[in-house]
């Protein structure tokens, strides 16, 4: 409908919309809308392809706040670069979805979507820009076959138990995830994350990603990073006393100070005695409160607010340790780690409201931290990360985050497929066979779909510096002859190797979700035949 109007006259659609809108349709100079959308989307995926896999390169992004980020994490890059083109944005949305759902394999999602669109472009060229519905139909069939049959039935090769029990399985999952972010350090990182997971994971439960925290301290190197069973606050204690062994802890959400009324009040004094005693009573009151806390056996006081000088004085006098934690989130984590309940009133906590931990103050690389270690059940583990530049540090944090998400997914579904492009190539080979049996125009689409799956192996090989064409050909040959475990060898020499022997596995659930979202994003782009953009609110240039 809209299209026919646009054909009619220049005044057609343009006349109906507000000034400053933009409208793109098929007959415009420069090819069909779909072709140009595809070009934009492909551009984006090509840009990020070089960041794929363990040998992927980083991007240096300076965002609009002039913050500098060096990373190879696809989702992190996309978040900062502000994609504008609507079609490319669809892909970005898919990536974001993958990041929230699985936390990993975001680049796979983007790359596959881009590759699928690229194949479509070739296909449409040969088919003369028609039959796009046939192509879509073919894609749907291929996707259905891939996601519901090939991946779960043919590709799943191993199943690990729940990570709480299966430590080896846990490391198997973690290593490739870490390797693809921080190649060369995956052993150390995987160990750290595995340790942290061991602390917080309960059998049969799904890992809460928030329960693993990271504290970044500049200086030193990754090897000096440690996993701490409990909580680490990046600030020094307030008191002279700095440590307490297996201490009872009181956490106050409010500040420790004489409470003042919200309404403005004036202290009215009538006699000279009032004046003399005024300060003494305030002092006595604080003494009473702090003494009460001390008597209940509390050795460490943590507060979310400020500590008045007077309160600190009495805390010192009763030989307690006091710490301030500014952030509400941190305070909540501390409560989780020590088993304390945050109190809003000032006074001695009941035994259930107390936490327990060993508190020590340490200096790590010039930064003073306070460590709450809890030998008994701790619901929080903290990774203290060390690296010599802040950009490496931030990238390590992202890698840990991805690792933790991978463990979370592994808790839900422990099925594994081969990594290193092996699973995709296996599916491609099977899909080709599937296409051969299919009459009609869909056959071309299915074949193009199968071909797109090869992009994983190709990019991995390219990024590793190998001759990609040769590697893909070798790999294909291996898979056709039944060696399903062969993938790209990125570590040693150009060529292919057994993923089983190198123990490179990906989580089935993550891979399926990445491919599914990629396919959905690509097919959505293909369905677009017109782009209409209304004028941006406020942002446009004023005449």
């Amino acid at each position: 409908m809209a299209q026919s109007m646009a054909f009619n006259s220049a005044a057609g659609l343009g006349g109906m919309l507000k000034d400053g809108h933009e409208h793109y349709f098929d007959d415009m100079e420069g090819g069909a809308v779909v072709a140009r959308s595809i070009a934009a989307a492909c551009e984006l995926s090509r840009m990020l392809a070089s960041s794929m896999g363990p040998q992927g390169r980083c991007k240096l992004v300076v965002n609009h706040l002039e913050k500098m980020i060096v990373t190879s994490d696809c989702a992190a890059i996309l978040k900062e670069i502000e994609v504008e083109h609507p079609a490319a944005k669809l892909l970005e949305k898919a990536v974001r979805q993958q990041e929230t759902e699985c936390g990993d394999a975001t680049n796979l999602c983007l790359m596959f979507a881009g590759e699928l669109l690229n194949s479509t472009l070739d296909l449409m060229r040969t088919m003369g820009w028609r039959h796009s519905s046939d192509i879509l139909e073919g894609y749907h069939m291929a996707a259905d076959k891939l996601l519901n049959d090939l991946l779960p039935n043919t590709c799943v090769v191993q199943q690990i138990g729940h990570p709480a029990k299966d430590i080896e399985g846990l490391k198997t999952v973690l290593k490739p995830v870490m390797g693809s972010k921080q190649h060369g350090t995956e052993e150390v990182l995987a160990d750290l994350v595995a340790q942290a997971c061991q602390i917080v994971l309960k059998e049969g439960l799904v890992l809460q990603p928030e329960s693993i925290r990271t504290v970044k301290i500049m200086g030193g190197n990754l090897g000096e990073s440690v996993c701490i069973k409990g909580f680490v606050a990046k600030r020094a204690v307030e008191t002279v006393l700095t440590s307490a062994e297996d201490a009872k802890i009181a956490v106050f959400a409010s500040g420790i100070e004489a409470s003042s009324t919200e309404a403005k009040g004036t202290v009215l004094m009538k006699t000279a005695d009032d004046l003399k005693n005024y300060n003494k009573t305030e002092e006595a009151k604080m003494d009473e409160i702090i003494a009460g806390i001390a008597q209940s056996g509390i050795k460490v006081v943590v507060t979310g607010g400020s500590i008045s000088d007077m309160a600190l004085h009495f805390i010192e006098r009763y030989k307690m340790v006091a710490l301030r934690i500014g952030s509400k989130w941190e305070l909540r984590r501390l409560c989780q780690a020590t088993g304390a309940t945050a109190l809003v009133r000032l006074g001695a906590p009941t035994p259930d409201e107390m936490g327990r931990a060993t508190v020590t103050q340490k200096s790590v690389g010039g930064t003073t931290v306070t460590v709450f270690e809890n030998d008994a059940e701790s619901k929080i583990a903290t990774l203290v990360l060390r690296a010599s530049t802040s950009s490496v540090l931030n990238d390590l944090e992202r890698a840990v985050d991805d690792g933790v998400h991978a463990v979370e997914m592994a808790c839900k579904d422990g099925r594994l497929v081969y990594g290193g492009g092996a699973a995709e190539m296996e599916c491609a080979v099977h899909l080709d066979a599937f296409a051969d049996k299919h009459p009609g125009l869909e056959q071309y689409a299915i074949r193009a779909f199968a071909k797109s799956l090869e992009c994983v192996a190709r990019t991995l090989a390219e990024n590793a510096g190998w001759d990609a064409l040769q590697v893909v050909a070798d790999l294909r040959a291996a898979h056709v002859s039944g060696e399903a475990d062969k993938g790209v060898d990125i570590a040693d020499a150009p060529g292919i190797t057994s993923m089983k022997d190198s123990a490179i596995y990906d989580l089935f659930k993550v891979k399926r979700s990445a491919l599914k979202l990629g396919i959905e994003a690509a097919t959505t782009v293909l369905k677009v035949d017109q782009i209409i953009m209304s004028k941006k609110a406020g942002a446009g240039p004023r005449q």
Partner: protein
Amino acid sequence: MNQMGMRPGIIILREGTDSSQGTPQLVSNINACQAVADAVRTTLGPRGMDKLVAKGNNTTISNDGATIMKLLEIAHPAAKTLVDISMSQDLSVGDGTTSVVLLAAEILSKLKPLVEEGLSPTRMIQTIRRTGKQAVQKVKDMAISPDQQTMLLKCASTALNSKLISSHQDLFAPMVVSAVTKLHESGNVDEIADWIAIKQIPGGDVRSSFLVEGVAFKKTFSYAGFEQMTKRFEKPKILLLNVELELKSEKENAEVRISSPSEYQSIVDAEWQVIYDKLDACVASGANIVLSKLPIGDLATQYFADRGLFCAGRVVDGDLKRVAKATNASIQTTTNGLTDEVLGTCGLFEEKQVGDERFNLFTECPSTLTCTVVLRGGTEQFIAESERSIHDALMVVKRTIQSGSVVAGGGAVEMSVSNFLRRRALEIEGKEQLIVSAYSKALEVIPRQLCENAGIDATDTLSALRRKHAQDGDDAKWYGVNIEEGGITDTFELGVWEPSDNKMNSFEAATEAACVILSIDETIITPPSQDPGAQASGMMGGAGGPPMGGGGGAPMGGMMGSAMDIANSGGARSGQLAPGVSYMKGRGGG
């Protein structure tokens, strides 16, 4: 033009976004790093020159790499990585901040030809990471642990040697060592900045600087009656307060309402009573010295003076804490319930004239873990730089205590590692050989720069060193540059020692920084956002002048591009600095 332009297929990022990629981008990043290294290159070593950085009204003269890098406000995103590593070296070791930057830049520049030849950077990263580990391991193997006292003294001398006050190291090195050793004995060596104070007194001679084993601070603002006070006590009792001893209203929101005029006097009396009660409590506690964070007024000063006490108000927080630590006193927020426990003591308290300032000194304290270094010197800048140097030396001594092992400086350890890696390289097959030998060659930058700064023929010295190390292997492992006489020598014999941690950390950090730069294959710069809040925060980086300046006319040839072009052409270094920074070098500047 509209936001989207006419060809949506091309513009996928926000207008004004600048991106550059591929080998040229990497090469230009490497060039930028080199330019940054060039800025601090001449400060290395005992014969290194200082830099004068003028920023607003502040003038800083410094020889410390980290300080200079911090002041330069480097805007180039990749080159910022070098600032990071110099900071991290400063934080974790405290010295060697220039060498880490030089090393990182040199590794990159030695790899540059390989990048240009098209060697895969990912291969390089892997190889140099591995090589870096080997280098660190080699340092670890080479390090030796001699007698602690000599070790500390030599390390402190070496650290001070490269600074402005190098000619007075015989004075400062023992000072620094004794300060840190005291702190170490009490197990608080991590909190060096809290417990060792450095006080500056402009004027006088550097040689008249001294160390107080205890606490020293400048006489605080004095009130009437101050002159009558006793200025010297032996074994005094010390009371530390966080209380204001002045006649004033107790609380801001308190209001007194009286019903008859006769009551008026009683209120006034009560106010006096309140302060007298406090003063009485102080005197009754038996203290001889009263110090407070808050003011001690005329009345109180006079009152204490009459009773033979010494008092000082408005003592700086850090000083008061140090007094507490040294004398075992605890700071009181109230004068009620003072017991003997909260009082501290020391062997001797006195007020002394230093230069044209009077100083309060607390010495012979029961727990003498805190020390104060009192620095004298001609100009403010001179003392400021001296303070930084002392600080560096303190950190180095601390590091030495912690690591317990040393290596020889003067480029010796770098030459040894370089020699070791060169041999390793020859055993490697394929392209990695080139990478490892590039790394080994990069390590030579330290001795070369030492020579150049000292005016010694670098090429001759370096080849002599290389030969010595290659021929005699481990026997000659401590051969480095002899700065004093030229030529090569066993620097270990010469007493040029550095903590091994220092070197290990700088190798690690330099390797990591090189990896970060190499791993970048694309630089994308989003223009600063237009809302005013963001603009204000954007001022800190200042990557490209006015926020929309680069994006307005030529989106692609924007800010980043031009900075890179400059770096590429190897011309003016101002390309790496924030806009408006001028750069002068040598004698001809002006």
